[in-house]
């Protein structure tokens, strides 16, 4: 079975919006993290359904040395006219774990993403000094930013260049709906594990 051990050092917690507009960037980040040899961890992954959500988030953050936190979704939602605070909350939990945690938690690294480079100063200025990058709502930029951050965060020999990653991702995206068709899966309801397994199999050498 294609799988990767979820070791602390290689786990990357992805804290981001799960909406249609963000979907292309989320897929690009999961693909990049995987192709660079790391394990993407998200609240979409299978878990005990009875588990309280914040406990699941604590567990994911506690078991990940690396974290990617996207704080770009600041607009009020259409239904309630209120912004979503979950992403800043989970970023805060990660920063708290690094600051007050013991042992391995002190080595945690965080990448903060927003759509524009200095926009965070207007709504979450206290995070100045963190590693903050912009993706411009563009999957290609997201791939390059995440790739460069992983390259600097750890000394990892398997990390390819940004252009190579983007070309691979474009090909994977073109193949994906066909792979869903072959596997009799509905692309509009692709579970995270099925998507991740497609990524892992696709990037694996031909068997």
């Amino acid at each position: 079975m294609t799988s990767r051990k979820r070791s602390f050092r290689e786990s990357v917690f992805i804290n981001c919006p799960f909406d249609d507009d963000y979907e292309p960037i989320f897929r690009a980040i999961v693909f990049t993290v995987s192709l660079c040899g790391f394990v993407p961890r998200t609240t979409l992954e299978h878990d005990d359904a009875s588990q309280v959500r914040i406990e699941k988030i604590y567990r994911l953050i506690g078991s990940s040395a690396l974290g990617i936190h996207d704080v770009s979704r600041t607009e009020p939602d259409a239904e309630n006219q209120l912004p979503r605070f979950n992403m800043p909350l989970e970023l805060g939990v990660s920063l708290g774990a690094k600051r007050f945690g013991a042992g391995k938690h002190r080595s945690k690294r965080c990448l903060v993403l927003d759509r524009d480079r200095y926009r965070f100063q207007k709504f979450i200025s206290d995070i100045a000094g963190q590693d903050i990058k912009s993706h411009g709502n563009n999957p290609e930029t997201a791939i390059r930013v995440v790739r460069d951050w992983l390259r600097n965060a750890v000394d990892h020999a398997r990390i390819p260049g940004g252009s190579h990653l983007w070309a691979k991702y474009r090909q994977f995206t073109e193949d994906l709906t066909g792979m869903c068709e072959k596997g009799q899966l509905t692309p509009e309801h692709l579970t995270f594990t099925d998507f991740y397994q497609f990524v892992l199999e696709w990037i694996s050498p031909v068997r």
Partner: protein
Amino acid sequence: MPIEEIRRAVREVKEMRKKDPAAYAAMVKRNAHRKIRIVPDRG
């Protein structure tokens, strides 16, 4: 979905892209309207 099925689907699409570009192009065109949406794992 069983990993064997995932593996088979990936292998078939990759082979089609290399060995039968016309069929591959038709498949891509046929699915062009599909929108990928990743949902939480069930269970």
